[in-house]
């Protein structure tokens, strides 16, 4: 049962890295791909916009599963990694605020929030993954040099993943610029490769955490695991429906949007 809880946690974290990782990469590349508010809007709308926060919910759910199935470890780990989590959360918040407010305001500073927040978030993920990789069973914040190096590599991965997924959805000038950046070498195989790397990265980094030893008691797991496992296919179905809806064109006989 402890293993099942660990697998569930891994699934949610991997889901976040694959789906939201591409959004973050796209946010980092925003100044390169789109010139002017309208173009940048089309980049965001293609990659993130119609789905709102539907990709980030994977991480929110992962943190919930972590707290529910491994409560003692969650507090210990988050407490010790506080200096890493502060910039990570700050980046996440800034990015979300920029994305959300962009819908109702044309202030140019909002694009800046999206870009800066995305970079801060990707870099912080690098530092966090470095901390997990070098920290063993009781990880603390990784040393600055290790952290910075990993952050650079992870930021590049986010960029590559964002590019590889976005070329399928972008149009017009942003698509041309994205193709220039990739040299036109993105296809199904690239998408699969970057997705697998993104999914594997956090799972490998977290593999050394003593999860099964610190799982919650049997009653707690028995209470929540069946519900969580039963929900997973339904969540996937709802997200698939959302993605399919976002890719269809709206009817034009109705006024647009709320």
């Amino acid at each position: 049962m402890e293993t099942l809880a660990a697998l569930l946690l891994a699934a949610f974290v991997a889901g976040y890295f694959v789906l939201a990782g591409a959004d973050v990469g796209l946010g980092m590349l925003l100044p390169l791909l789109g010139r002017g508010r309208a173009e940048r809007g089309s980049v965001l709308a293609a990659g993130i916009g119609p789905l709102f926060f539907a990709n980030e919910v994977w991480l929110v759910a992962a943190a919930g599963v972590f707290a529910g199935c491994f409560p003692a470890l969650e507090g210990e780990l988050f407490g010790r990694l506080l200096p890493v989590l502060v910039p990570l959360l700050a980046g996440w918040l800034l990015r979300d605020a920029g994305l959300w407010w962009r819908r109702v305001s044309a202030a140019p500073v909002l694009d800046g929030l999206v870009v800066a927040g995305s970079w801060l978030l990707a870099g912080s993920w690098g530092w966090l993954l470095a901390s997990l990789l070098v920290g063993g069973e009781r990880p603390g914040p990784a040393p600055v040099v290790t952290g910075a190096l990993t952050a650079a590599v992870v930021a590049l991965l986010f960029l590559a993943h964002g590019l590889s997924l976005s070329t399928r959805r972008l149009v017009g000038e942003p698509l041309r610029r994205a193709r220039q950046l990739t040299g036109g070498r993105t296809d199904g195989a690239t998408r699969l490769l970057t997705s697998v790397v993104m999914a594997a990265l956090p799972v490998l980094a977290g593999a050394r955490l003593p999860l099964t030893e610190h799982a919650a008691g049997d009653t707690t797991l028995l209470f929540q695991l069946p519900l969580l496992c039963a929900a997973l296919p339904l969540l996937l179905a709802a997200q698939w429906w959302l993605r399919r809806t976002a890719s269809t064109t709206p009817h034009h006989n109705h006024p647009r949007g709320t």
Partner: protein
Amino acid sequence: MDAETLDLARWQFALTAGGHFLLVALTLGLATILAVLQTWATVRGGGGTAERLVRYWGRLYVINYGVGIVTGILMEFQLGMAWAGLGHYAGDAFGSSLALETVLAFFVESTFLALWLLGWDRFNRWVHLATLWVVTLTAYLSAYWILVANGFLNHPRGHRETADGRLELADPVALLANPNTLLAFGHVTAGALLTAAVFMAGVSAFHLVKNREEPDGFFRRSLRVGVFTALPALFVTVTFGGVQLAAIREWQPGKAATLDHDTAELARVQAEMVARFGPGDYLPDAALTRGAGLTMLLAFALLTLPLLASGLLALWPWAVRRLRVWHLTLMALVPLPYVAMIAGWVFREAGRQPWVVYGLLRTEDAVSQVSATQMRLSLAVFGPLFFVLIAVNWWLLLRAAGRGPHRTDLRVG
């Protein structure tokens, strides 16, 4: 544990949770009103004023939803970052409610909110209506799961102690049916509906004062919806509040005695706690707890009379169109539910101190092993960030509210 770390961690959690709570109050209440309005619009065949109402108030709902989410994210992580001792000692007993909240409620709510927004131009109107009901019901489910956790902290149920002195879940049904949770759920959700209804009435009154009524009576109708929702919501909120006040005399006598300023009872509670738990101060901060409790009661008292009068005035078409004094009064009422909500929350949470899990774990024993410098850094980052998020949220919300129902596009581009 460093006393400064404890204070900073408490400040940070109070700001985060309090800010989140106020945003969510409006979101939850507006979602309910929207679901009913869209049901009405759908039954009548779509289009018309009912659909315009859903689009206008839906836009305000969505603006407010975003910052509610980001503050909620911070709260979720902060529980582990700053309060590791709580997860270590009691996470097994109540942490599952947080997992179930994120997966069964929040995940579904966010996904279906996106579906609802995209669905305007894409779905059959009944399917579109169904997506909004899923959003609304999962928002209530979310509030329920959070109050399962909060109810456990205030009045622990369904747990047992393990051999190594920690808590574990023994009886999930007792955890889920905790009377403290259920009463708070009724009180808070009705309070949220009251907050949204008064907001709706106040914004509509603003447009009527400015002579910006639409030809189809858009704001008159909104005002009536607000007033006729606020009255029953106020009644339900007060009822659940009264039942809770009676119940806490038994559950948390120190909290009740602080509100009553009953020195004899306070001395008795203190003596009883010392006998049970050893020497220490077992009474909550009197000024904060009592001040918050009285503020809450005062805000409700100030709302009651004008809302009762509004119930009558709303039946009189001339008053709805022209009675300026009443419109200005409705506008002035908008902050009052917020004051009552936040004061009620401070009363609930400050009044259970010094416990984080009532009678089982002290707040000072729950804080993470984090240096004061780290906690100060965290507060220095999140404090101003929060302030800006909430300030900009209100600015954008009021700006969109003031523009009226004509500009209702929420595309990202």
